[in-house]
């Protein structure tokens, strides 16, 4: 009783500090200047090149909005330059031909649950690898890292057989369960907690009588917050855009967004203004997320994120 009431303030002071200090470290790294640092500003050529790259990155999205706001015959009449007024009509056709809102709900559910569980389990494992001493920890961590190079996707056939034994084919569980913790997440949190969480802090709460799990919950988890947020973001994006396994294991009647999206194109005659409207609608939520948290994605990658 007394221990649990004594730990939270300590966490709030020291754990928060540790987290804040780490965040400061990140910011400092993020604002480091390039080799052209100093008074010299890059010339027109650099800006022109980058401008072209960014335009190239945005153009396909603009294009799908362009085509999605006209009707199916627009391209036979020449390349349009400005959006038309047909977007809502096309959107209605998207809703008619695929279970769009169901897919959207499923994608939100699967991505959120996966992101939350990856963060929880990866932080737990990262805490153990970074801060607790136990026999075999080094070898086990190397094993975790090595599994990142294993193409487990190639085990789809038995995974599918197992899922149908469980009666999980067609169910969202089949998509969620294999992703609840990732090697990358464990590695990422281990790296972060090693620097961001002082050993003394854990020793201090242990002296005060906290158990291991209390030390994790009240000290490690708060200190891990910045890295955990990035991990959640990356996991969310990766789960949202994932196609191969959901496509194999889910029914067309209960899909995630990418699975539903490709159904728009499965008829013999393809109406591209409808297909590209679907592409816009399904990308929209992630673009919104990008506007809000794109900065975090950038610094996450620059701190050594790898493809999930």
């Amino acid at each position, binding site marked *: 009783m007394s221990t649990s009431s004594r730990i939270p303030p300590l966490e709030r002071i020291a754990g928060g500090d540790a987290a804040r200090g780490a965040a400061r470290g990140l910011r400092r790294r993020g604002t480091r200047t390039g080799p052209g640092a100093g008074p010299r500003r890059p010339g027109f050529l650099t800006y022109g090149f980058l401008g072209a790259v960014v335009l190239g990155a945005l153009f396909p999205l603009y294009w799908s909005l362009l085509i999605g706001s006209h009707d199916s015959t627009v391209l036979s009449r020449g390349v349009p330059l400005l959006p038309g007024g047909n977007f809502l009509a096309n959107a209605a056709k998207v809703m008619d031909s695929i279970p769009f809102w169901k897919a959207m709900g499923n994608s939100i559910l699967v991505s959120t649950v996966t992101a939350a569980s990856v963060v929880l389990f990866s932080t737990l494992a990262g805490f153990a690898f970074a801060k607790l001493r136990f026999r075999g920890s080094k070898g086990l961590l190397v094993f975790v890292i090595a599994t990142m190079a294993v193409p487990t996707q190639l085990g789809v056939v*038995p995974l599918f057989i197992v899922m149908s034994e469980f009666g999980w084919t067609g169910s969202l569980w089949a998509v969620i369960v294999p992703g609840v913790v990732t090697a990358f997440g464990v590695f990422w949190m281990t790296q972060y907690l090693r620097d961001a969480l002082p050993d003394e802090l854990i020793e201090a709460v242990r002296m005060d009588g906290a158990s291991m799990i209390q030390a994790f919950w009240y000290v490690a988890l708060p200190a891990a917050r910045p890295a955990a947020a990035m991990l959640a973001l990356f996991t969310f994006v990766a789960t949202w855009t994932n196609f191969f396994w959901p496509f194999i294991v889910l029914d067309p009647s209960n899909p995630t967004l990418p699975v539903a999206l490709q159904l728009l194109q499965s008829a013999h005659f393809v109406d591209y203004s409808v297909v590209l409207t679907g592409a816009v609608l399904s990308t929209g939520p992630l673009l919104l997320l990008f506007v809000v948290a794109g900065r975090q994605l950038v610094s996450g990658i620059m701190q050594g994120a790898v493809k999930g």
Partner: protein
Amino acid sequence: MAVTDRVRPATPSRQRRPQRPPEAVRRLAFSQRLSKWDVKLSPYLYISPFFVLFALTGLFPLLYTAWVSLHDWDFIGGQGTFTGLENYQFVLAQPFFWNALGNTFSIFVLSSVPQVVLALTIAAALDANLRARTFWRMGVLVPFVVAPVAVGLIFNNLYADQFGLVNELLKSVGLDPVRWHSDTLASHFAIATMVNFRWTGYNALIFLAAMQAIPRDLYEAATIDGAGRLRQFLSITVPMLRPTIIFVVITATIGGLQIFDEARVFDQYGLGGADRQWQTLTMYIWELGWGQRNFGRASAVAWLLFLLIVLISLANFLITRRIAHQGGRK
């Protein structure tokens, strides 16, 4: 006093006293033992979710693929008779298998090489002392949040044989339109563009992070020695980035050899074209397993692809080590 003190009041406490300390000791010992177990077992408990999950959904299915591949194994009927290497013989005799293998490599090369070169160039530009630095960094990363399926659908339209934007542009400058959906190499090029679109900015940011870790005095020394910007890039930046480049290439290899999404949606039938011009190995696995409902043959291809990836990773590792040693000798 001494007597009473010794005998009378002490009697009850004497009887209790020898009992009390062991009780306290035992209680202390118990909580200590509990705490010792807490210290000893907790780490294993905390890391166990990953290992259990990896064993059940990663390692076991992968190894079991080899077992399935040695059987007649139907999608609905399940496990049939043991057939040894028959599935492998069948698959290796299929022209579609070799076709898919070639397509996979072709798409992979077309996507990885230009991607690394372009990502390095973008990173070098981002590494300059830019105004609105965050804007540029975010700008190149936008495609990362677009799902590969959406990317595939959009580019499928851009590369449409009839009325596609790319062909219209080609025509407007007086070139012949390309048959993106029937020429093998053209289709590989189109699919490689989608991969590049999604990953170039991402890899550029990885390179950028590595570039910023290069000691600045190297550039100062080179400037004093009279080296130009291009020379500095080729003689300092690229060599210093070697480990990062190798890392990017290895992850691109493991992912690239399993490419599925973009190629799957490059037409509405999803089998890789009328003559399987752009069918990749993972698409072939899907066709065998879920199209033809033959899990045995699908597993045989999956296992072959797995061995291929292991071999290439090993080769990568050996080459990398050799380069690293040579670098050390210099």
